[in-house]
């Protein structure tokens, strides 16, 4: 199976010499297509930084990183934007929906940046909303939706360009436990359909849903456990 994530010796240093903070101190990580990985660790462990690099939002200070076979080293800002657009689907803790754009438009946005035509965008957006279970909300604003519904919209948006990797940062952090379970179930369902999923969380229970757990501490991977039979 081809690898979605191929990271070698990733190092990230914030600040300059005197006040330098080493967020990542040499990370090696390989994730294959179709895996469901949980990235766990306490706050300050560097998991958000790692996630940013994996999602091409940030670039490493040192080390090499390839996503879905593309080495990102030395790529231009525009090329990175293209990778984020095509290969990565982000889901954030606080949903990060555009508050004044309709649900459908929120979902359409990645398609817009990919250059998909208007009619096709609308069709795909409706299809995706159906897939995450809220087809009837296409024309409302995010403000009227519950947290769980917002996160479903965010997931629909993340799936818009059928990315190689679904990257979720504490996707249930802002939800009550029941809704959180529903969202997690959706992730599992998406995984079952063949999507590669990476969850970033500090919650051991959520992490236990994944078939593979990568634990970070002080910028290093301290454990990497795979369970063939997850939950």
């Amino acid at each position, binding site marked *: 199976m081809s690898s979605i994530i191929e990271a070698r010796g990733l190092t990230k240093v914030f600040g300059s010499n005197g006040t330098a903070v080493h967020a990542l101190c040499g990370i090696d990580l390989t994730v294959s297509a179709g895996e469901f990985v949980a990235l766990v660790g306490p706050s300050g462990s560097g998991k958000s930084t790692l996630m940013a690099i994996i999602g091409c939002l940030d670039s490493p200070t040192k080390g090499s990183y390839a996503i879905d076979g593309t080495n990102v080293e030395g790529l231009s800002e525009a090329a990175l*934007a293209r990778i984020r657009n095509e290969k990565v689907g982000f889901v954030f803790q606080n949903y990060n929906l555009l508050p004044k754009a309709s649900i459908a438009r929120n979902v359409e946005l990645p398609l817009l*940046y990919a250059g998909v035509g208007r009619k096709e965008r609308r069709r795909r957006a409706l299809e995706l909303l159906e897939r995450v279970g809220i087809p009837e909300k296409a024309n409302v604003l995010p403000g009227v939706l519950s947290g769980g519904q917002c996160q479903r919209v965010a997931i629909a948006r993340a799936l818009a360009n059928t990315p190689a990797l679904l990257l979720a940062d504490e996707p249930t952090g802002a939800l009550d436990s029941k809704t959180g379970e529903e969202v997690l179930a959706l992730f599992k369902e998406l995984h079952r359909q063949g999507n590669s999923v990476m969850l970033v969380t500090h919650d051991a229970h959520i992490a236990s849903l994944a078939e593979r757990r990568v634990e970070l501490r002080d910028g290093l991977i301290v454990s990497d456990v795979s369970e063939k039979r997850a939950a």
Partner: protein
Amino acid sequence: MLSGAFRERLAGAWVEIRENLGRSRLQTLGVVLGVASVLGGFSISDSQRRRSDERWVKLGGMDRLNVQPSEAIRDGQPTALQTANLGLRAEDADEGGSLDAKAVSGVSQQKMARARVRSPYADQDRQLTGIGGDYMALNGYTVEKGREFSAEDLENGRPVALLGAEAAATFFPTGDAVGQTIRLGEIPVVVVGTLAEKVFRWRDNQGNQFAWRNRIVAVPATLVARRMQGDRWQRVDRVAFRIRDLDVMKTFSEGLGALLKGNHRQQEDFRIDDIGARVRKRRSQGDVYNMIFMLSGVLSLIGGGMVNVNIQMATLKERVREVGVKMAIGASGREVFKEFMTEALLLTGLGALAGFAAGVAFSKIITSFLEIPLFMQPASFLWAFLLAAAFGFAFALYPAWKASRLSPMEALRYE
């Protein structure tokens, strides 16, 4: 240029504007005021200038080039050369008229005299106007009753007269002047026509500026020259050329000067109207106002631009998050820049349209208050729009550039 991507961006900008109506309204306000001010200002000053041009023409100002003998020959002790010189005469008018036949649409001569004017009803000492050429047309006189002087009358100095409205009323209060005889000094002349009353008022409640013109007692200039105070050279008191085009008038006046100097033994014993001054006057008329209005327009555009930048900065938090999200889902810095610029330019365009409406309304109100007809030129619209577009563009650059340079990670985390 109107590619698919641009249309998408435009549609997106429209959505963005509609979704943030309050913010957008504030942002366009400066543009609206600026455009309204430039357009309104230009239009009001154009209207005023046009009105004043019309009055100039009506007063017989703008399109006439007058030549008069200079003072030295009229009073005092003339030099031998001046004495020997012939002065301004009919020949000058004829030659001047054929100098540029295309440009000159009329030539008139005038020779004044004073005489005792007597009719069965009145006996007054009056100025007589000896006229020749196209005097009537050039001075805007029209015949009300009877007829104008014929070419033959003018040529041969026939004893005929035309009376202005006031003169007719004075000498023939019964209203049957045409066909009657009046005596100019000892010369009996027949009144062949009376002239329509000439009226011109700056404002409705003011006096008639043309009252003096209605006092005219006109006879052929040749009659004055032959039978009252003439000489054999047919000297005249004034020659006027009608030339519609002010630019042509300038070159014509130079040519005429050279011609007359040659005719007058190299003596500058005549005076031609200063066309340069007239051109300057016409050009500068309203220029000051244009400058002031343009300045106030530019100032409100600058003010508006700053408000715009301020709003962008004040809504930075919201916008930075938005930019972060857009970047996370695949917008490049260039795309973000284009989105911001498109939005700003669309706002400017909409603001300019609203500004046009406001400017037209503004001009209408002011001109109706000033009681002058409204006159708007496409150029004013263009100017207002170009200024707004230039400033809209300039002030959009900074926020757009700022936004495009955000790092997606920092933008997402921005609190």
